[in-house]
């Protein structure tokens, strides 16, 4: 029973993570990862700064949405 529940919970978490990925919820994590790997000297943007920068850049760089 408990293994069934655990499997269910893993499955649900996986689905939530997938949906989050599709929505772009993990953008900041990915940015940090990139920042670390690229070996930048300056500190990365904070989460608040990152999201602000992201939406502000979309202002002048609109992404299409289809019909």
């Amino acid at each position, binding site marked *: 029973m408990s293994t069934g529940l655990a499997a269910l919970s893993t499955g649900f978490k996986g689905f*939530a993570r*997938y*949906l*989050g*990925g*599709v*929505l*772009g*919820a993990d*953008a*900041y994590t*990915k*940015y*940090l*990862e*990139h*920042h670390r*790997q*690229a*070996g*930048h000297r300056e500190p990365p943007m904070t*989460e*608040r700064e*990152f*999201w*602000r*920068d*992201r*939406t*502000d*850049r*979309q*202002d*002048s*760089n*609109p*992404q*299409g*949405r*289809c*019909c």
Partner: protein
Amino acid sequence: MAETPERRNGSSRREGAVATDPVLPPAAVDEDVREAEERKWTPGKIALWGAIALLGGVAWFMLAVIRGETVNAMWFVFASVCTYLIAYRFYSKVIERYITKPDDRRATPAEYKADGKDYVRTDRNVLFGHHFAAIAGAGPLVGPVLAAQMGYLPGTIWIIVGVVLAGAVQDYLVMFFSMRRGGRSLGQMAREEFGVVGGTAALIATLLIMVIIVAILALVVVNALGESPWGVFSVGMTIPIALFMGIYLRYLRPGKVMEVSIIGFVLLMAAIIGGGIVAETPWGADIFTLDRVTIAWGIIIYGFIAAILPVWLLLAPRDYLSTFMKIGVIVMLAVAIIAVRPEISVPAFSEFASRENGPVFPGALFPFLFVTIACGALSGFHALISSGTTPKLVEKERQTRFIGYGGMLMESFVAIMALVAAISIDRGLYFAMNAPAALTGGTVETAATWVNSLGLTGVNISPDLLSQTAENVGEESVVSRTGGAPTLALGLAHIMQQFIGGTAMMAFWYHFAIMFEALFILTAVDAGTRVARFMLQDSIGNFVPKFKEHSWRPGAWICTAIMVAAWGAVLLMGVTDPLGGINTLFPLFGIANQLLAAIALSVCLAIVAKRGTFKYLWIVALPLAFAAVVTITASYQKIFSPVPAVGYFANNAAFSKALAEGKTEFGTARTVTAMEAVVRNTAIQGWLSVIFVVLSIIVIATAVLATVKAFRSRAAGTAITDTEDPARPSRVFAPSGLVPTPAERQLLAEWEKVPADLRFERAGHH
């Protein structure tokens, strides 16, 4: 390059091979190993594909050949899914092998331009969902509904065959070629391949096409919300909900996208339920019962404000909501259709399949069915998403087949489900809902009499059924609710209530469906206006440089105002059209969308030819020729047909003549003002058709010239300028499809062992 062991990095068969780092495991599965794996047919594999082919064959047989009283909806699911699987496994492989020729040893823009923001390597399955959410919207939900006028079979065949040979091919090729060019947009690629004349024609055509597409999508929303207090309230509530989400994400809890999406979703459900309660109250009915012209003005004003507001406040949060709903709704619809398995009593070919005077959209099956169903079979608008956005996120070149071709197959499946939902409702009801008020008379009695007078087999509708249906879905009336969205909503409610909740829940499901369609469309309107505004700014910027500065507010506002005025004028024209609006304008939408597809395919044709792939050029030429023939024929008929219902100018002449003769009513126009409106509208629609078709012919001709030139230079042995970005070696590996193959698994295991700091080039590029 010589030091690199050939075998480890794949065979040298491919042109332009790049040397990957010998310290790392190979960035691609060895060519020969992959080849052997693909060509090896184990008994299990043969049995599986045999079973898929057999099931698909039986399903097509049930749909196309067997003529029973009814046909079960499951056959639509089997026929489409089996065809998609076979096309994906075999046809898209042919395209991959002979046209795109991906090379996983090459880094993708997401790798060599990585910036952690726009260029980010994204897991293929996540990117599949992301890309799908960007391409799928209201289009595949509306077109198939209107096309159901001709029976289920023509639409089904076009959606499935069209996507396999045309739509998915276009999406895949555009995505791949854009990826090879650092994620350049379709417009930039057109300019590169065609030069100034062709490029400019493509740009103007794209701009005009976007105006038409936005206007007609907005018209669908207006028609769905007209005289519907429930719909107006719940869709109206999406604005404060989105604003709240925007502020929440900006100031309260930045980055908690999932959290805010769930909150937004709950609020949205509350808005739908609340809408039902508000619409019941006298004051609610009073405030929110709006006529179509008022709603149209509302959307125009909203469109302008939304397009100049910062993205974080309205567009981004509503986009999260829309994506969330999109995936939820599509999964829900699929589950419901499989669980309920509705019986379909619509004939394979209806009486209107062989006539030109259908009430839902006029014109003969060829070419008008093929322009009515654009999204779901072949949609040019996708080329704007497949270039630019998605290619910047692709991790490995080989994944474009899964994301581009596969993503479009998924959208086609959505179109099939929309078709099933639309044809699961009573046929009489379908015509009463989708014919303009000028024909139905607007009341249940006149509508029932009119539908029964059509002489359709098996159709005998009573006024009671019409009023009962309206009551079930919580609407004042369902007569002449044109535009496709209400019909789809009714079909969905009809299927869902059998699955969850019974008749009592029907009103909820109906407004749930209206809500998500409106959400998709408003997002498309907003994003479309923004994209078009930037295109306009850049174009004007060629003459007045100041306009190129995107941050210059007056420029942004002027260009936004021009774009909104353009689509707003078309929208108002559709809303007030005495002939019905959607039936005269929807063909223009389809024609515009497919002309864009023809432009995108022209770009692909030129690129493929320049790469020297002449033997398989037909893979691109076939859909291009079809799209060109369909749209040019449709435009030709819209311009030159002597039948007033079909030809814009014929109708214009008929009404002008009637006015000149001093008549005070003519056809469905009951007043002189209405007659004058018809004269004006048909002239505008006619000239728009002329402009579209001329621009597209210029673009297609330029592409053919570029192709011929490429062929000649290849024959003469002269060098051809390559517009691809230079190849760079990749330092990552990821499988190409949904499930990794054994060879991919093995290579993945090798990569697991590589220390993380070795995998990426350090620093330097910033």
